[in-house]
């Protein structure tokens, strides 16, 4: 085992809150065992911004709410053998997907942005302007779950998934076995 090459693992957070990545740290000292078996490629954990070479496993936190999310997700799909949607946002859109259900006019995106920046009685920015800096990625018409954009091989549910759940799945996938979660670990909250 020790002389076999390390597996490559890439991770990213799209329209997520980084909670799933925080939960990855909840595997506690098992992270030492993980580091024995995997090398991190692109990940917020090491701040590598682009995937450097083909990876065995990609973990995706969050769904797609802007065009950059879509590009990142597609890059992960192209360069990872196994792609895993981690957490409710990646699986079904999560909290950001609430905007899909409130946008029901002919011009849903406008409705959403007006509610967020112009009309709502609760807004905090006094100038009532929709952010339009060219550096900001374009927002999508609605929030998409990962499996609506690319093929997803596995899902780890939870908000966030527990460290135990992430550990269970990761160790299976690294060893080339399919995800096989004990029922007791499956949680959607």
């Amino acid at each position, binding site marked *: 085992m020790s002389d076999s090459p390390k597996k490559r693992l890439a991770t990213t957070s799209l329209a997520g809150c980084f909670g799933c990545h925080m939960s990855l740290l909840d595997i506690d000292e098992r992270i030492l065992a993980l580091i024995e078996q995997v090398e991190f490629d692109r990940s917020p954990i090491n701040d590598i911004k682009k995937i450097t070479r083909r990876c065995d496993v990609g973990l995706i936190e969050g769904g797609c709410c802007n065009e950059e999310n879509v590009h990142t997700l597609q890059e992960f799909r192209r360069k990872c053998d196994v792609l895993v949607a981690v957490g409710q946002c990646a699986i*079904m859109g999560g909290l950001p997907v609430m905007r899909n*259900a409130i946008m029901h006019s002919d011009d849903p995106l406008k409705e959403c942005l007006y509610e967020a920046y112009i009309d709502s009685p609760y807004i905090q920015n006094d100038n009532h302007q929709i952010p339009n800096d060219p550096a900001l990625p374009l927002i999508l018409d609605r929030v998409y779950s990962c*499996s609506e954009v690319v093929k997803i091989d*596995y899902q780890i549910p939870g*908000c966030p998934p527990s460290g135990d759940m992430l550990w269970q799945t990761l160790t299976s996938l690294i060893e080339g076995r399919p*995800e096989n979660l004990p*029922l007791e670990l*499956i949680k*959607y909250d």
Partner: protein
Amino acid sequence: MTTETTITFTIDGQTIEGRAGQSIMDAADQAGIYIPRLCDVEGLHPQGSCRVCTVKANGRSTASCTQPIEEGLEVENETRELRNYRRDLVRMLFHEGNHLCPICEASGNCELQAMAYRLGITQASKFPYLQPVRPLDASHPDIALDTNRCIRCGRCIRASKDIDGKHVFGYVGRGIEKQVGVNGSKLSKTNVSIEDYAISPDVCPVGCIIRKGEGFKTPIGARKYDQSIIGTDKKQPGN
């Protein structure tokens, strides 16, 4: 003096005895065998609409909560085929409404979610999320209705009609548009009361009927189905 006729049949090869007129589910419950279910609950008439309780009886698919037992009937319950059917049915309920478990007050106590846990639903599903626009009615001082999570099981309807004698809830619309409505323009204009059995935590299996002021009494992680898989707390035979 009546002597009850005993009926002998099998579930997954195990011999069970029941009484004439009993449903497969009732007889199974009495024998301590769990058949998954959502629209059926103890104390209410069975409705047979969710089909999560589907079993094979002599090779035919049928709702076990409404199908009576028969002498020599061979029932299949925990088979791979039936588990797959049930998985699809439960998935469709998730996709048909708006189920954001992380912000739902029922999470951990919810029977739909618990059924998904029991069925091991973690894989990407083949169905699209419909993301319908559904109303929230918080007009009543003690009760809120978040129909985003309603699975139209009709348990509230039967409880209000048969136990409370009030008819607060009823179905409106058809097909995919079918919804649960109330007997007034909004909840506060109905004769509903927080004391109604229909509003008790046992009736609505999901987080649609909300008792206000009780949210998060039990923290997430310490709730009913955080402790045990649904159906594993079944009564033992004879109870």
